């Protein structure tokens, strides 16, 4: 499922152009981000936009974003035990990170993703 969407792979290359750190990396060494939303609510749309923006700006490695709409696939909520919406999950690399909210607080998202050093650089 993660490898199904290749769209995310294109983004870092796009982001890499305006910003210094992003380079296309082997997918095994990259990040897999999964964003759970429920329907096209304002929070969901904001979260998707914010995630893309943050990744474009701060992501040092190759990454992959998967957006899951639980309205369409509710069974997917079980595995990752999604209570809050939206929830961003970073499964790889370990440890698993869980970030909730519309990702509007960029700094908190970066802290949550352990991306602060990247920003400081």
């Amino acid at each position, binding site marked *: 499922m993660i490898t199904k969407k290749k769209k995310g792979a294109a983004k870092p290359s796009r982001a890499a152009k305006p910003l210094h750190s992003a380079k296309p990396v082997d997918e095994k060494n990259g990040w897999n981000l999964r964003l759970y939303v429920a329907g096209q609510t304002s929070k969901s749309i904001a979260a998707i936009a914010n995630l893309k923006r943050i990744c474009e700006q701060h992501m040092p490695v190759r990454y992959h974003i998967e957006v899951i709409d639980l309205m369409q696939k509710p069974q997917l909520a079980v595995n990752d035990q999604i209570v809050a919406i939206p929830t961003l999950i970073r499964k790889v690399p370990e440890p698993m990170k869980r970030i909730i909210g519309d990702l*509007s607080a960029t700094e*908190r998202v970066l802290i949550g993703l352990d991306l602060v050093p990247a920003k400081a650089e």
Partner: protein
Amino acid sequence: MKTRKISPRELPKSPTGIRGLDEITYGGFPKGRPALVCGSAGCGKTLLGLEFLINGARNYNEPGVFMAFEETPEELIANVSSLGFELDRLVEKKMIALDHIRVERSEIEETGEYDLEGLFILLQYAIDSVGAKRVVLDTLEALFAGFSSESILRAELRRLFQWLKARNVTAVITAERGDGTLTRQGLEEYVADCVILLDNRVIDQISTRRLRIIKYRGSAHGSNEFPFLIDDGGFSVLPITSLSLDHPVSSEIVPSGVPDLDEMLGVGGYFKGSSVLVSGTAGTGKSTLAASLCRAACSAGNRCLYFSFEESPNQIVRNMRSVGIDLRPFVNKGLLQIIANRPAAYGLERHLVSIHKQISEFHPSVVVVDPITSLISNADRNDVLAMSTRLVDFLKAEQITGFFISLSSAGGSLEMTEISISSLMDTWLLLRDIELNGERNRGVYVLKSRGMAHSNQIREFVLTNKGIRLLKVYLGVEGVLTGSARVAQEAKEKEIALERAQRSEAVAAELERKRMSMEVRIAAMRAEFEAEKLEAGKLISQDQRRLGRIEADRAAMALSRGKNGAVAASRGKNGKNGQARSQGL
């Protein structure tokens, strides 16, 4: 216990299947609505929720969803398997969906606006997977702990409860008790339909769990605090009083096993299904009276259950044999079951439940509790009274004759039972010591016996090697006489009677003698009279003869006057005759 008839106007309910809880809620939790169960840690909230689901799945064909925020499904299954619930089996059969959501604050980074739509989706998914009619959320505190924004949580919870109502599932939400409030988050305002508070108190080192229905909209409910317990059978609530006083009555008689007592009671025994209280100080023969009843009932083929809080079963059997009551054959035959427990073994409620359980399993017709007062050491009097009331009600409802032994403390008034349960009792026998002449003897009387013309006498209670005898007591100047005083009195009376008998014999003999002497005298007088009578008869006949001769002479003289010569001659003759006659006389 009877379930109340539910009128169509009443709120539809979802039975919990938990013993006692359905009775005090008149049928269960409100159907299709959320109910809140709150209480401090370890008081049984999770178990209550689980049993609600398990019973629903097993007995009412209502599948359920258990959403745990604390324990994992494996833990839950293991925890309740010791109670005999095969939760895993129900999960396999798709009757119950177990869902565990781990919410760890440290792993969650909050970055702006969010809601709990995921929870709703998870719930909906779980509900759909088994077609659930019941939902349990356990506990909300764990969910609350995971998120920092209280305002979002509150708004989402309100939405959740509305959502649950809209799904028409009966939900049980558990919550930790707060300081001074029912729940830490003030949840009761969201789930205002039915709020149940669980409590675990420790008094004198014995813990008692209590349950109270704080509110139940649209339904009557028991408003008291009800003890409940969690034992190997799960959760059970004990209604303090059965809610009505309408148990059936019987005029069938249960012999007491003591013929003299049967006679004192006036109808030949106790009424079936009545409660009998025997009170008395130590060593007055209360247990023996109980054993007599057991023997009588078992001999008639009935079952007896004997709860002993002082003696072991073997000790009871041995001791009763010494007064000629052999209980061993009944124990062997399984008619008599003696269950001995230390009063302090566990709390009152546990005792009551164990009594209930034993009774429902054994189906006895007579139950003895020996003594009910020893349970006082465990709890305060009100509790014991409440427990006794519950027990008496239960026995009456089951038409079981209850025999309660109450140990009175020396010095107190005998008419006052320690736990003032006498008013619950139909028959009250009082055994008392009578101290006299350096002896201690037992007296018994029937203080009350409802519906019987019972004796007002005090009888002496004597334990013989053939059982109990109740003897009539003697009233002396110093009160009733018992024991050797009675024996002395009996001897004295015998002596007096003997004396009296001897005296009347003597009087009779004297009279006889007098009669005989009188008769002798009468005979003598009669003989004398006869003699006189004979004499008188002779005299009379002589006189008559003389009179006749005079007449004859006169006639002869008249004749001779007519012939003078003849007259002279006859005169001479007459003269001679006259002389001779007078000489002859």
